[in-house]
Every structure is written in structure tokens, then in C-alpha cells.
């Protein structure tokens, strides 16, 4: 490939394609490299996308036949002990009509493919089955293109946007982002379980087209810092369970066994009963938060999405940060093209946009959340077990006076955890999210 482009984008995920859509709309010569057989072939998320961020790029995404699985009308939060668990849920009329597609589930192999097709229709060139293995630089060390694993695979571009995801050997190799430490990523496994559409509607109490998300803390991750989810798709459920990689390493727990145990929990088993597993996948989640974000632009390059560690672990938001950071990157590239300045200074508009938007403001707000989870393991282990036992005790009718039960419950709590420590956990927790 001796052809040259204005912009080369690495990765056809939400970040890269969002940028490609905007650039192509403005007539900028844009190429996107995707290492998978098709866009989405390598991608996973729990499966929730947000209409707001998608609409900023494609206001008519619904009429363009976006492969939406279910519109989310209810969010549940579970706190599980080994044998039981608490459930809190919120459903709102506004999400049925007025704010429809505020959040919706997708299968990323279908969604990313569709999204890339839209970028193609707008004029971007999407090249699949191609790994970007290095970057071309000029004498001043400015990035001036990419090296791919194709024969004659060098391609020159004025700007390169790295949108190649959290697992990016390229970022590490170029020194643009250090390799994450095991404590900065969660390793999640996902299973897709097929069920008849009507059965999903019955089990989750929703109409056709609507769905539910469940976020789960506690025993699902066997006391490790992590989270599990169950999301409804049209004809399947997405089950994910993930834990901090350093916890998994230390505890020697096999992720696929953790998934099988999760599926047997009394709160989970009836939801998936009779279902047929159809796919099994694994992926990282960026858990380092605001303080792990690398320098997001430099001479001739920008970094967007997961690749730049833009992930809000508390609110399970990632694909929206990817879409919005991709759009901001494209806007900054347009400015740079106009000025003819592709240096770090010329691309600076990207950073100011991120800083002024919810992307950096949210990540900053929760910058302590990751270390809170890491340093307060009781939240995942002894507290849910204790709370479960307490509820079990109080709900069991066996002739024992309630006062006596309460005393037993409090004694048990104090044996496991001091009052000071308990207060500290609540204080730290509040501080990490306020």
C-alpha cells in the first residue's frame, strides 16, 4: 500500500468508528484497520450501549437498523452471599417511551459490524483482517503512518488514531501507554445463553423489545474484587463474571469455574434454566481509572476509548466513553487538518474537549473508587456473607425471639470485623464516589 491517507485509525470498535464517521462526513480521507475477520470479531462488552453518545455520531441510528437487542427499562443490583442474596431494582416509565434507548443491549459482533458499515457508507475505508504491528515515524519522531502485517503493509497518514482497545500490545510497544499492571485490569469471562424470546420476557417481566440489566456484587466473584452481570438480549442472556487479575492470580481461581459456580447460584439458576450456551469469551476491563490514563495525544497520534483507559468501572460505562472520545479525537483532527499542524500542540483540542466533558469529569470524580475496591476486600467477602446470614436469621420463623437473633447477628459481625473498620469502609466508600 503506497497510498496515503489523511487519517489512519487502528481498531474498528466504538471509538475508532465514531471518529471515522465524523471524519468521513467531512470528506477527510480515512482508513480504519481492524485485526478481526470483521469489525466486532474480537470485541466484547457486557452488552449495554447508550443512545446519547451514539446519537451524537448517528442521530438516526434507529432508522439505520442498528442491531438493538433490548431497550433497558429496569436496572437491578444484587448483593450476593453464597446461598442467597439481596436484590434492589428500579424501573421507570420514562425508559419505555420518552427516553427509549437511553440504554440498550447489543451483541458487539453484530453492532460493531453494523457501525463500521455506516462509516463505510459515509466514505471511510474499513480494512479487516489486518494487524497494525508498528508505527512509522519521521526524523522528529512524529508519527506519520502505520506498519501492518500485510505484505508491503506500510501506510502513511497525517494522523494516527489508536483505538485498539484495552489489550494493546501496540500501545505498550510504542511506549504511549505502559502495560497495565495486573491490579489495573479485571479479567472477565462471558457466556451467551440462548433462550426463547417469550421465556426471557416471562422471566424478567418485560414486553417484547424491552429488557433488564442486573449488576452483581459479592459471592459471584468468590470474595475477589470484581463484578458479575446478567443482561437480557432478544433471544439470549449475557452472563459475565470478572475479577481483578491480581486477585485471580493470588487466589488461583479458574475464571471458567467461577462462571460455572455463578450459574448455579439460587438467584441465577432459574433465570438460565433450559438455556443453551452458544458462546464463551474473555476480555479485560480497564480498572485503573483516572490516574491510569496515559498521555492521550502527541506528535501525529491520539489515543481514544479503552486503549486510553477511559472506562468508568462503577457505572459500567465504557463504550459511550469510547464513542465520545472518538468523536472528540475526530474534531481535534479536523482542527489540525485545517491548521496543517499535527504536532502535540496542533492536536491539543482533543485533551481540552475531554477535560471539559463528562468523560474526564466522571473519571476524576471516581478516581478513588478502584483503590477503594482493592483495599476493602470485606465488601466482596465477609460483608455479603454476614448480611446474608442476618437476613436468613431474621426471616426464619423458629420460635427464637427476634432480640436474641439480633444479638447473635451483631456478635457475629463484630467477631468478623471491628466497628472502627466497618465505619472506615463506609467512610472510604462514600469518599470514593462522592
Amino acid at each position, binding site marked *: 500500500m503506497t497510498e496515503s491517507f489523511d487519517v489512519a485509525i487502528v481498531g474498528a470498535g466504538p471509538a475508532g468508528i465514531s471518529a471515522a464517521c465524523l471524519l468521513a462526513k467531512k470528506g477527510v480521507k480515512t482508513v480504519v484497520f481492524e*485485526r*478481526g*475477520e*470483521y469489525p*466486532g*470479531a*474480537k*470485541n*466484547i462488552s457486557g452488552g449495554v450501549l447508550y443512545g446519547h453518545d451514539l446519537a451524537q455520531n448517528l442521530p438516526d441510528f434507529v432508522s439505520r437498523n442498528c442491531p438493538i437487542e433490548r431497550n433497558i427499562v429496569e436496572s437491578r443490583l444484587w448483593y450476593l452471599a453464597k446461598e442467597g442474596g439481596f436484590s434492589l431494582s428500579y424501573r421507570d416509565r420514562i425508559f419505555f417511551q420518552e427516553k427509549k434507548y437511553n440504554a440498550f443491549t447489543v*451483541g*458487539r*459482533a*453484530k*453492532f*460493531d459490524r453494523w457501525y463500521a458499515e455506516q462509516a463505510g457508507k459515509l466514505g471511510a475505508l474499513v480494512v*479487516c*483482517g*489486518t*494487524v497494525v*504491528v508498528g508505527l512509522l515515524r519521521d526524523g522528529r519522531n512524529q508519527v506519520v503512518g502505520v506498519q*501492518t*502485517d*500485510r505484505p508491503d503493509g506500510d501506510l502513511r497518514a497525517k494522523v494516527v488514531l489508536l483505538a485498539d482497545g*484495552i*489489550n494493546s*500490545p501496540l500501545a505498550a510497544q510504542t511506549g504511549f501507554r505502559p*502495560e*497495565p*499492571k*495486573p491490579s489495573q*485490569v479485571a*479479567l472477565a*469471562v462471558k*457466556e*451467551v445463553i440462548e433462550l426463547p424470546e417469550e421465556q426471557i420476557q416471562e422471566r424478567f417481566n418485560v414486553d417484547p423489545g424491552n429488557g433488564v440489566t442486573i449488576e452483581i456484587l459479592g459471592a459471584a466473584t468468590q470474595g475477589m474484587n470484581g463484578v458479575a452481570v446478567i443482561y437480557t*438480549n432478544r433471544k*439470549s442472556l449475557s452472563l459475565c463474571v470478572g475479577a481483578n*487479575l491480581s486477585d*485471580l*492470580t493470588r487466589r*488461583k*481461581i*479458574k*475464571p*471458567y*469455574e467461577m462462571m*460455572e459456580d455463578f450459574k*448455579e447460584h439460587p438467584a441465577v439458576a432459574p433465570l438460565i434454566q433450559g438455556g443453551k*450456551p*452458544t*458462546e*464463551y*469469551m*474473555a*476480555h*479485560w476491563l480497564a480498572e485503573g481509572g483516572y490516574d491510569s490514563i496515559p498521555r492521550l495525544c502527541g506528535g501525529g497520534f491520539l489515543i481514544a476509548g479503552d486503549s486510553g483507559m477511559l472506562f468508568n468501572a462503577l457505572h459500567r460505562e465504557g463504550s459511550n466513553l469510547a464513542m465520545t472520545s472518538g468523536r472528540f479525537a475526530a474534531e481535534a483532527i479536523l482542527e489540525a487538518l485545517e491548521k496543517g499542524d499535527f504536532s502535540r500542540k496542533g492536536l491539543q483540542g482533543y485533551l481540552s474537549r475531554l477535560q471539559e466533558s463528562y468523560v474526564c469529569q466522571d473519571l476524576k470524580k471516581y478516581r478513588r473508587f478502584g483503590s477503594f475496591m482493592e483495599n476493602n476486600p470485606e465488601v466482596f467477602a465477609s460483608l455479603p456473607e454476614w448480611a446474608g446470614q442476618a437476613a436468613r436469621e431474621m426471616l426464619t420463623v423458629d420460635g427464637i425471639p427476634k432480640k436474641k437473633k439480633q444479638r447473635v447477628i451483631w456478635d457475629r459481625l463484630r467477631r468478623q470485623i471491628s466497628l472502627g473498620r466497618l465505619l472506615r469502609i463506609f467512610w472510604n466508600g462514600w469518599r470514593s464516589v462522592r
Partner: protein
Amino acid sequence: MKKKVEDKLFLDRFRVDEEPHLRIRDGSVCRDQCTDQPCLYFCPANVYKMEKDHISVTYEGCLECGSCRIGCPYLNIEWRFPTGGYGISHKFG
């Protein structure tokens, strides 16, 4: 009944690259220095298995998460993406 990881991987679609994309750099490090050998546990595809005198690498079923690259205590695993278009292809994602 609990499903084995082999059954799970059987659900996936792989286009296997002839050239392995994972390699243990120095087997003696695993044998002589690495006491915990966490790769035998955390790998979600059970790529790393203890054989009689070495750890085998069945890269064919790799889910490409990258965990072994950063989780190996001796950073003893050489890791690259499979050639473009090879490796796992998600059906639903």
C-alpha cells in the same frame, strides 16, 4: 452439571493460525524459578497445562485477553496478536 472449559471453547469459532502467537520464552524459568505458576489457573481458555516436565501452550483456543502477558510473574510469555483475520471470531460478542 458443570461444563468443562473444553466444552465452552467448543462453542467458539476459531480460525487457527499455523504460527503460534504465544510462546514461553524460557521453559527453565517456569520449571526452576516460578513456584506459583498462576498461568495454569487464571488463563480463561486453559491454554497453559502442566505436562510431565514442562508447561504446554495450546494457543489454538486462546481467547486473546492478554492476561498471561502481564500476569506471568516473570513476564516470560511472548505474546502477539494472531495474524490478521486469524484467531477467535466472535459470533455474538
